[in-house]
């Protein structure tokens, strides 16, 4: 006889607090191991690129970071939909917990993209489609964080930020494609970050390992952040008082 999983069990901050607390160290550990493995494959095993030499290896951080910056925004928007539709407090907190991590990945993508660009194009910045989209994605993240910060009432802040995240997510592909089109119109840099070199199996492996590491890191960090938010908000509630005095 199977029992229907009560998903709403996890939607209560009290239960999630405990579950998240137990899972976090595992995710943290996994992320360190996966990152070590990925960097070893990428920097140690994968061959040098015959044109760009060793410098291109920064792509093993840049590409996963860029992927994460977009996935996390979609995940954030997904939680936003849950928060506004089902009015669950936890979903709203997850929006706030994911935003800073997503923003940091965007920053890492921009910086690593810049570092890669310097030896390749001779300049730290070009207005290529990928970098430009990443830059505006960063502004979208900052917007969610700034909007949340601007509202003093936490419930209103959560709901406004959730709505903005949803609107932003709809716009992410629109912005990406319009920037791509703009880039082709203006005959920008002929070498673009989107023209990925044909990938050897080892290179793909390295990127996937680092991407998985990034996911584990994201879970670990967002869980920690959401637990902090829960503590801040539900500080006076019964279940927490019991925990503290136990």
């Amino acid at each position, binding site marked *: 006889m199977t029992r229907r999983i009560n998903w709403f069990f996890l939607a209560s901050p009290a239960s999630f607090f405990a579950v998240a607390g137990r899972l976090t160290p595992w995710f943290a550990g996994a992320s360190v191991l996966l990152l070590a493995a990925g960097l070893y494959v990428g920097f140690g095993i994968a061959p040098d690129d015959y044109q760009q030499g060793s410098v291109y290896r920064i792509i093993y951080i840049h590409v996963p970071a860029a992927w994460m910056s977009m996935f996390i925004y979609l995940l954030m928007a997904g939680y936003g939909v849950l928060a506004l539709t089902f*009015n669950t407090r936890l979903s709203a907190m997850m929006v706030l917990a994911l935003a800073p991590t997503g923003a940091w990945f965007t920053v890492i993508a921009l910086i690593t993209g810049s570092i890669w660009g310097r030896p390749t194009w001779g300049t730290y910045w070009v207005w290529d489609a990928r970098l430009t989209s990443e830059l505006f994605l960063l502004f979208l993240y900052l917007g969610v964080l700034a909007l949340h910060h601007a509202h*003093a*009432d*936490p*419930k209103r802040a959560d709901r406004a930020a959730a709505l903005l995240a949803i609107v932003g997510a709809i716009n992410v592909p629109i912005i990406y494609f319009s920037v791509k089109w703009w880039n082709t119109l203006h005959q920008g840099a002929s070498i673009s970050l989107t023209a990925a070199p044909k990938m050897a199996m080892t290179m793909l492996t390295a990127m996937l390992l680092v991407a998985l590491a990034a996911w584990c890191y994201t879970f670990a960090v967002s869980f920690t952040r959401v637990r902090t938010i829960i503590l801040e*908000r539900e500080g006076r509630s019964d279940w927490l008082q019991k925990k503290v005095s136990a």
Partner: protein
Amino acid sequence: MSGGAALEARDLALERGGRRVLAGVSFRAVAGAALLIRGANGCGKTSLLRALAGFLQPAAGDVRWRGAALKAATADTLFIGHEAGFRPELTARENLVCALTLAGEPARAADDALARAGLTARADAAFGQLSAGQRRRVALARLFASTRALWLLDEPATALDDAGVAVLEDAVAQHLGRGGIAVVTTHRPLAFAGGRSVVNTQALEL
């Protein structure tokens, strides 16, 4: 107006800014009844009114209007908060006509309503140029012209002189006489005696 109109709150709890401001509030008001909500500043009177209007979702318990749970703001309700929804750039008459048209109520009732609120002389003055008492009287005019079943009034007697308060009490009494319900937060005592009939008035202390 429907005889089945009833407003009910069951074990209502409300939160503002992460803080619980009300807990375990229950009451029932039927057609023709007034509910006076009294309490110190900051004890949740306005939050309760906003919850009854459907703006604020309760943290616990529920609000029931006409037997069904209240999910959102409904067109049965007339809500007049501290700010009554009038723009300073428009005249008193324009504001009133605008508000009535918006609410789907007959705009031709505006002049009569302004007269009963004692504002005929200042009807064409910009709302922003009226005194606080006169602005409150424009809200009174809104009351006279309204045909809605449930009135939620947040400290409607503020800034009114004794004559104004009498007009307010008169307007509410007439509304109750027609079978309406009024929920009024107030600091000062208000009495809604409609002519000869004793009006059912409950008091809720927060």
